[in-house]
């Protein structure tokens, strides 16, 4: 089997995962497609560095392409996060409202800082273990855990706020 078909067989099955990550990080279809085109070429060129599971490997390539693109086009999105040691107990304090729907959830996730959004998307939508998320995002496992906890807490807070009676939220 030649290398091209090996690439197609091992890497392309993860194209949806790659697109989903690019779409959540860039937050629109057009940019996600541009970034992914570029990322797939890069993946193809560096196919030789692939060891083991292709999915986290491809997602790392896509994640880096997204951050490079954001840096150039929306630098405010990727401003470094103060990874303050989080001493409070982890997890959302607020219960998720029963009335949460698709639109509210998507808006709440899109509003998270990109560094929180990526760990949340990789954990909940790609179902990846901490170890893979750490490799993809290039951060220690401890940071994966604290960012995930803060992402979930922030998400629960914003979902609870929008779900309380509207009169109190909007003037």
């Amino acid at each position, binding site marked *: 089997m*030649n*290398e*091209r078909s090996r*690439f*197609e067989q091992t890497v*392309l099955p993860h*194209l*949806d995962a790659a*697109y*989903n990550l690019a*779409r*959540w990080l860039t937050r629109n*279809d057009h940019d*996600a*497609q541009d970034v*992914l*085109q570029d990322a*797939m070429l890069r993946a*193809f*060129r560096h*196919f*030789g*560095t692939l060891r083991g599971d292709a999915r986290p490997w491809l997602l790392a390539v896509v994640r880096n392409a997204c951050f490079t693109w954001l840096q150039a086009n929306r630098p405010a999105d990727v401003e470094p996060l103060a*990874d303050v040691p989080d001493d409070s*107990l*982890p*997890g*959302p*304090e*607020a*219960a*998720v409202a029963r009335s*949460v*729907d*698709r639109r*509210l*959830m*998507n808006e709440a*996730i899109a509003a998270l800082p990109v560094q929180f959004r990526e760990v*949340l*998307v990789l*954990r*909940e*939508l790609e179902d990846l*273990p*901490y*170890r893979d998320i*750490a*490799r993809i995002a290039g951060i*220690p*496992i*401890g*940071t994966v*855990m604290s960012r*995930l*906890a803060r992402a*979930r807490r922030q*998400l*629960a807070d914003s*979902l609870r706020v929008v779900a309380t009676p509207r009169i109190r939220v909007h003037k």
Partner: protein
Amino acid sequence: MTHEEAARALPAYVDGELDAAASREVEACLAADSGLRAACERLREMSAAVRAHADYFRAPASLKPAPAPRRRWTFLAPAFAMVALFAFALGVLVSRPGEGEGLGREAVDAHVRASIAGRLIDVASSSQHTVKPWLSARLPFSPAVPDLSHAGFELAGGRLDYLGGEPAAVLVYKRRDHVIDVYVGRGAPLGASSGARDGFNVERFSAAGMRYWVVSDLNRNELTDFVRLLRQTTSGS
């Protein structure tokens, strides 16, 4: 496991990241503590709500390669063959399994387990005079605990672990927010080696009758510096 520890380990428990023993400990705490059960329930609901309601964006057809034999990437095929050949040669050179290899893997697994369970450190101290006696009292040997703070590697503490079924000392150093685990155990000397596994850099060497494995997500250059300093100080003692 205390209430506090269980609460801290709860997300890892809900995410299926704890090993069987730690899961059982969390479950015991859950059974005894309704507040913890409620927190666990909120975490599960949060996770389920995201999975149920968040959009999953599938790649549009325009990004998928045509099924016809003419494909966009054909022109790269020769470069590809070269890369593959190189990778193959490298793979043959690197993947020579042995005792050291297996223990290196164990060290990485132990490091990941400890970070997930939040139990990297049994004795927290930046003083070698605290860490060394603590470890010596619990092990059949007395590991060297060098002070490398002058080079920017702070001692954070130590813990006990096992490597290849033998008790091992783990010295925990920190560089910024990166943890460096140094596994120290007795055994026949193994040649020095350095490599990467699961995204962690792993270095191995032997000195003064002890074998050392260094595991960290710190970048290769800084870790190499660290290992050089460690070797200098341990081989003299």
